[in-house]
């Protein structure tokens, strides 16, 4: 059964425990930052920041200011562009839904970075490989929640069977509607279903989420194929070089 993470923004208090727990579990270093006119930091997701909380200030029609928070990371799409364009198989699907990343196999081609419709896959300049949230397969497959979920103090992040979380999200939606809010569910059908579901209190665009995320393979695939071909050529060349060297040694 597919599993997922549910992000209920209406329960988020912006404490950023998830952001730090992620760094702690995955041993990701702190980035140098400066205050830039928002509580949000670092500015973007990166090889050292796989999850971050976005702080969004909105003004409602009645003039009231709202402070919204979104714990943002990889969405683990069913139609995952990154996975489709990966020439080496470094990006792979766990049986329960997460898009995992095996860095040992990554060749640093960055097609996944370009293909991700959410901009969450990043390139690690230090290792020359891609980086992103992998939804803690080491924890999940040992029966634990992902690190971000386990630290959330308010229940804004939950992890479980995707169908259960969908039902829960819909109940929450109805609850918020009764309160006079206009919440939205995000991730049920986008890209054939995300493994990160969101209860949003504003339109997706307010949080910087694309209203209609698109599968990017169409534009990137030719390049990807070229890369595969190039890898094959290089591989053969390497073998030839190796054989030549051995042949010389034998002389």
């Amino acid at each position, binding site marked *: 059964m597919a599993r997922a993470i549910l992000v209920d923004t209406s329960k988020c208090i*912006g404490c*950023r425990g998830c952001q730090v727990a992620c760094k702690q579990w995955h041993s990701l270093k*702190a980035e140098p930052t400066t*205050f*830039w006119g928002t509580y949000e930091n670092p500015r973007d997701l990166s090889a050292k920041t796989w999850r971050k909380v976005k702080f969004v*200030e909105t003004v409602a029609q009645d003039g009231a200011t709202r402070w919204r928070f979104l714990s943002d990371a990889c969405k683990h799409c069913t139609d995952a562009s990154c996975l489709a364009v990966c020439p080496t198989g470094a990006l792979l699907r766990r049986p329960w839904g997460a898009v995992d990343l095996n860095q040992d196999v990554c060749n640093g081609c960055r097609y996944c970075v370009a293909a991700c419709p959410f901009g969450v896959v990043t390139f690690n300049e230090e290792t020359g490989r891609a980086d992103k949230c992998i939804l803690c397969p080491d924890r999940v497959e040992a029966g634990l929640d992902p690190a971000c979920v386990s630290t959330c103090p308010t229940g804004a992040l939950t992890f479980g069977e995707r169908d259960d979380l969908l039902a829960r999200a819909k109940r929450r939606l109805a609850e918020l509607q009764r309160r006079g809010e206009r919440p939205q569910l995000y991730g049920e059908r986008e890209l054939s279903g995300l493994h990160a579901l969101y209860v949003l209190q504003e339109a997706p665009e307010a949080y910087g989420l694309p209203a209609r995320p698109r599968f990017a393979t169409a534009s990137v695939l030719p390049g990807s194929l070229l890369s595969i071909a190039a890898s094959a050529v290089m591989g053969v060349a390497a073998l030839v070089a190796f054989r030549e060297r051995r042949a010389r040694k034998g002389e």
Partner: protein
Amino acid sequence: MLLGNIGVAGGGVNALRGLSNVQGSTDMALLFHILPGYLGTPTRKDHPTLQAYLEKETPKAGYWVNKPKFFVSLLKAWYGEAARKDNEFAYQYLPKNSGNYSYLDLFEAMYAGKLNGFIVSGQNPAVSGPNSTLERKALERLEWLVVRDLFETETAAFWKGPGVDPAKVATEVFLLPAATHLEREGSYTNSGRWLQWKWKAVDPPGDARSDGWFANQLALRLKKLYGGSRAPKDQPILALTWDYGDGEPNLEKVLAEVNGHTVADGKPVKSFAFLADDGSTACGNWIYSGVFPAEGQNRAKSRKADPPESLGINAGWGFSWPANRRVLYNRASADPKGQPWNKEKALIQWDPNAELPDGKKGKWVGPDVPDFRPDLAPDAKGGGNPFIMRPDGKGGLWAPLAEGPFPEHYEPVESPVRNLLSRVQFNPLAAIYKADLDRLGDPKEFPIVATTYRLTEHLHTGSITRNLPWLVELMPNLFCEMSRELAAEKGIKNGDPVLVKSARGEVRAVAYVTGRLKPFKLGDRVVHEVGIPWHWGFMGMAKGDSANLLTPHVGDANTRIQESKAFLVDVRKG
């Protein structure tokens, strides 16, 4: 109380404490005006003798009539054999208060050069205290300063702070590395009054030592230093009972002393009900009595939780003072006839057929320990008076406030507006100090209201959190929140550097222009407000100006809490 929320399950006074053991440190008399167990500190004026103290401080009715038992037992715990009936149980060894020794007053005295030495443990006054300029200057007037902390704090490093010439500071500073809470054992008392033992997780690194080790060494070495002295001033130190081991003290031995024992056989007392005022018992803190009722039985370690669907009394989890009662004044959970107001949440009720140890019938029964005489029937005299600590046994609507009893609106001492609700502008009993650096601002010069606050990412003065890279990454710099309207008026853009100035000092910060702050419309005037977190200082990984450079040395009329939530500043780009 009027709504029936006192003494019932889920009700009561639940103070939201800022730290895990604030309740414990208050119970154990961290404050200057009390001794352990909320016994008032003797004063030079009112309590020259033990007899005078007990006569003045013991009410005629209510449970506090037992105060002499608690007080004499405390003296016995502290001075052991040196506390005898014929020497007022060593009462004269206790220092007598002759003034106010609260935080602000101590720093004023220090600034006036009246204090020679200062021991600071896990506190960082150079950042947390109001009017930091004055407080840092006050530290320069000490002969010696001891700081125990995890990092070199601004207090430990005041002599090399901004604008200070180290060559001109004569204070000798000792910085001792301290162990964290995870590196030592002991107990915490939460605001539900539960004592919970905690165990050491790891050894402290290097030379870092626990608080207990420091206190133990301080006492042992002072005793050695004064050894053999006959000077009267040294006797309180020499007479102090102190037997917890040489290095890391045995904290269970300390807790057993706090619990109390009978002097003759040294056996623990089962509760404060067994304490006496004739010197036959010793007890370090009567309210904690019962936490160590028998040899080797530390109830703070007990870990039996009630099932989640139950009322949640959890009588088997830790120890709740007094007498393991979970809900204070729980007599109020039952009606005058002794039947629970809410049967599903019954704490105690009168059972006329229940048998007492002496064979008589009728007692209070239920899942909680009665906060009441267990055999006092509802129809007996006083049987309907739940508030046993008060002389009349009744709840009181008026608290004994210095400026009470009637509530009144006062403006902060620094305010841009006239008090429209009272002829008196600000609290006439507020503590205001008159040293040269205690300047108050004129609204004409400082027209903007400022408030200070904390962030999720940093703890207090940031002495720990500004040294943790992941938290520094989240909140790297001091900022100043302001409304769009104020920013427009001052030509400030989001992210611009700004200078915030008060009558006491100035800080540089990054502007955070936000709709979350709105200008106030007060009468025909618009008043602006800015918000500044107070976590920064000049040490650590994330450095910045301290917001308390701006705040005044003004204390509230009852507890002298600093007035750092409302004061006056001006703001400009720069």
